[in-house]
């Protein structure tokens, strides 16, 4: 039901949010502040000036003209970050080919996807929205802030890593298994082989350019030197090899995950994170050693063959082994309750409240390369904040307010009021219509 209600009642007034420059001033008073990285302040204030956190402490006075939000009895937390989702884009997979690193979701952003608002309602301030997992080498992903009502351009987080989606296992191998034109690869060995083949090509391509640039620089350079053809497909992979882009790899099984790590060593590229990684607990030691994170569901498993051995304990277990774990939504529904999923790691895996909260705040921030601006409440970071009525790791909690760079984008009380008014108006209209008919 919820899914249906949300688009209808998003509120007509919300539609016409005036386009303001982001970066506003706000003072949040008297909340229990969970800074994530610097402990808890039982009753404290946060001052945001021009979108940046200026002060965190007790008894902060509001400078003149600065709006104040009273958070008495509430929990003030760093905005939740979703390390892996597919919202706010109008295309998922460039499924026509198996290897498409030249495409980027940057070109298909949709600032009017109502899932952005759904995300806000779950305290989510930032997402990594990704190419799908249909292709062994998919496309380039992007990090967005959920600035509902602003343009796609204003949502892009330029500080984040450039990332490229890879996918192993069932999805790339079956992605058009049942269509008229099945394509290579159709097995796990094929997936590995095709990625390796393309990386070899990219290596050659990169070396070709290096040779050209070197020849161009040298004094004896030939007058008639023709630059190699710029190939965007190879260029993207070359950027991966140059370290300018990081791999994000959809991977379920431990064996193929290890194979991909071997590939990264062979070609010298960096993996930021494995996606879903349901067998991560089997290779936690290796992941920790390599400094590769995982972005997972907390307690979803057995929904397909390669997820049979998934366990709810994996996130907690891996965290304790030193792996950087984040909980992702992968969807526009789960995105509104990531905090619930994180909290489950306390029951399954025995994490503390602080550790559990990190799974949806600072950990994904580190995975996305934005830990300097987000992921925790610290002076100098962006004022991206979620306010909960109870501790966010409580089963009874809900998000009351979501703030990005000092601007309130979601206010539950306000929203409910608008919804009620909208319903009233509608009811009156119906009544009037019926009256006219009579």
């Amino acid at each position, binding site marked *: 039901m919820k899914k249906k209600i949300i688009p209808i009642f998003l509120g007509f007034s919300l539609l016409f949010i005036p386009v303001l420059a982001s970066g506003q001033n706000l003072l949040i008073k008297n909340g229990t502040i969970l800074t994530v990285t610097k402990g808890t302040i039982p009753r404290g204030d946060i001052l945001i000036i021009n979108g940046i956190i200026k002060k965190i402490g007790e008894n902060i006075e509001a400078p003149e003209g600065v709006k104040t939000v009273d958070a008495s009895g509430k929990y003030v937390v760093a905005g939740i970050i979703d390390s892996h989702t597919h919202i706010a884009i109008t295309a998922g997979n460039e499924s026509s080919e198996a290897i498409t690193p030249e495409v980027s979701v940057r*070109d298909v952003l949709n600032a009017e996807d109502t899932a952005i608002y759904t995300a806000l309602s779950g305290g989510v301030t930032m997402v990594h929205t990704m190419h799908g997992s249909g292709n062994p080498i998919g*496309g380039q992903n992007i990090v967005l802030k959920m600035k509902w009502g602003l343009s796609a351009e204003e949502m892009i987080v330029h500080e984040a890593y450039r990332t490229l989606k890879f996918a192993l296992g069932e999805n790339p191998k079956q992605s058009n298994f049942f269509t008229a034109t099945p394509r290579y690869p159709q097995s796990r060995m094929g997936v590995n082989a095709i990625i390796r083949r393309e990386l070899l090509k990219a290596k050659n391509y990169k070396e070709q350019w290096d040779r050209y640039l070197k020849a161009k620089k040298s004094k004896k350079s030939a007058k008639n030197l023709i630059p190699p053809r710029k190939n*965007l497909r190879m260029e993207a992979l070359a950027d991966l090899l140059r370290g300018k882009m990081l791999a994000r790899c959809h991977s379920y099984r431990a064996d193929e995950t290890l194979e991909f790590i071997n590939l990264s060593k062979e070609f010298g590229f960096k993996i930021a994170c494995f996606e879903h990684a349901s067998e991560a607990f089997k290779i936690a030691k290796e992941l920790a050693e390599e400094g590769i994170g995982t972005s997972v569901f907390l307690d979803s498993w057995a929904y397909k063959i390669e997820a049979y051995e998934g366990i709810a304990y994996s996130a907690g277990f891996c965290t304790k082994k030193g792996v950087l774990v984040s909980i992702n939504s992968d969807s526009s529904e789960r995105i509104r309750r990531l905090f619930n999923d994180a909290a489950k790691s306390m029951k399954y895996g025995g994490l503390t409240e602080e550790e559990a909260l990190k799974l949806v705040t600072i950990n994904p921030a580190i995975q996305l390369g934005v830990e300097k601006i987000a992921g925790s409440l610290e002076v100098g970071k962006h004022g991206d904040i979620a306010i909960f009525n109870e501790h966010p790791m409580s089963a009874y909690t809900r998000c009351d307010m979501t703030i990005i760079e000092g601007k309130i984008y979601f206010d539950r009380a306000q929203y409910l009021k608008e919804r009620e008014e909208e319903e009233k108006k509608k009811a009156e209209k119906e009544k009037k219509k019926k009256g006219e008919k009579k």
Partner: protein
Amino acid sequence: MKTKKFLVLFYFFLAFLILVSSSSTYAGSVYAIVNCKVVPVASSAIDKGVIIIRDGLIVSLGPSEKIVIPEDAEVIEAEGLIAYPGLIDAHTNLFLELPKEEPAQRQRGMAPQEKETGRYSDLTVFKLLKPKKTTIGSYHKIGVTTVLVAPKKGIFAGQSVLLNLNGEKAEAMVVKNSVALQINFTRARGVYPATVMGTMALLRQSFLDAKHYHSHKSLYASSSKGIKRPEYDPFLEALVPFILERKPIIFTCNNQEDIKRALRLIDEFKLNGFLSGANEAWRVADYLKKTPLFVSLHFKPPITSIYVNKGEELKEKAEKEIYPANASNLYKSGIRFALTSYGLTKASDYLKNIQKAIKAGLPKEEALKAVTIHPAQFLGVNNIMGSLSEGKIANVILTSGEIFEEKTRVKRIFVDGVMFKIKKPPEKVKAPALNLAGKWEGTVISPMGELDVTMELEQEENEILGTITSNFGIWEISDGILSGNDLTFTISATIMGESIDMEFSGKAEEDLIEGTFSFSSGSAEIRVTRVPTSGF
């Protein structure tokens, strides 16, 4: 095979028709349009003026007392009428007949290749033109003398052509060929690119390739010694002038993100880019100060729009109020634009929607400029059209009142100095007795044999629209009127590459339409029955 034999006979029959039905036009006449108000657009209006047309050009124009009427001129008394420059519709797909293409297929077991589709940049749309009299008539009726015909299929759709609607001969209509390269943010099915993100990558790659190809070729031309000969590539060959010599590229933008996509490409590759469609342009007005805009008069919000996804009420408001205000909002933001019929299915909606745009706040003078001088400037033809002055092409319309008023009708239209009278709309139209919308099937019985046809009809009050499909292809119905049970319409049938006009007149009942097609040399009977719609 009965049908085969029949087809042969029918072809003979039709070939005969073609011979007798072709007509010629004469452009050498001299006309003096007298006693009308003249609105030249680029200069001030003349209350009582004269326009002299000779050999397709305006030779003189001015107040009645100052202009001498040549002896050999046919005098057109136009008291009470107003003369305007012929309107320019800068984005249409008129007269285009596209060959059906087999869907691209990848063979089972084949390794993926860098297969790409939608690249027709070497295609000049002129080759596809099949002018139709009825279409020309419907454009004359709304005062349009000039149209930009843009190809519509594929990503690199091809090169557009500017036509004066002066007759039925494509060659004689051409004002300017290869006006611009039309690019659509469309995608392919089954082959690369299957998504718009793939399309963007393909566009970027192609632009880069054109640059590379050009630099390699130039280097080779300057000293071919010691340089590998570049491989000839017709696609890139056609693309180079648009990427390196700043020939115009028109991007069809169906939503605000398309506009931003186009602007990114224009910026990245320093293109001479124009935007067309753009019915959401006001939403991204801040980005649009510099780029020439051909704004569509199509007022339906695109499916990605928030106005579509928030329930019926808002959608209706969007169509009736928000999108019609696009032009007016652009005007208020200080943006210059042309208005086009792109996306409209009926020619008559062009004027209706201009009226709606005016109602939504667009000043009338600005609306007039947007269909005359602005498109002429954007297309680089303002020295020959877009306003009335001496030496310009005689594209002139005479209207019964101020243009864009609801009751105003175009009375006469001069295109390249050729005069056309506008058929009066049927006067006594009765309320339609029934609704003919739906699918029909039946037979055409001619002296030469029978032809199976299916008809798909749409009805809007008295107006009937639709198509007739047979072995010969799909023919469009125009000027369809249902008055009581009396149905009349015309079709421009294309048979063996020639177009033949046929007029239908007959009776319609709930499940049966019967009547006669008449053409210049004979007639045929038609009888179709309604195809029941399934209950599901």
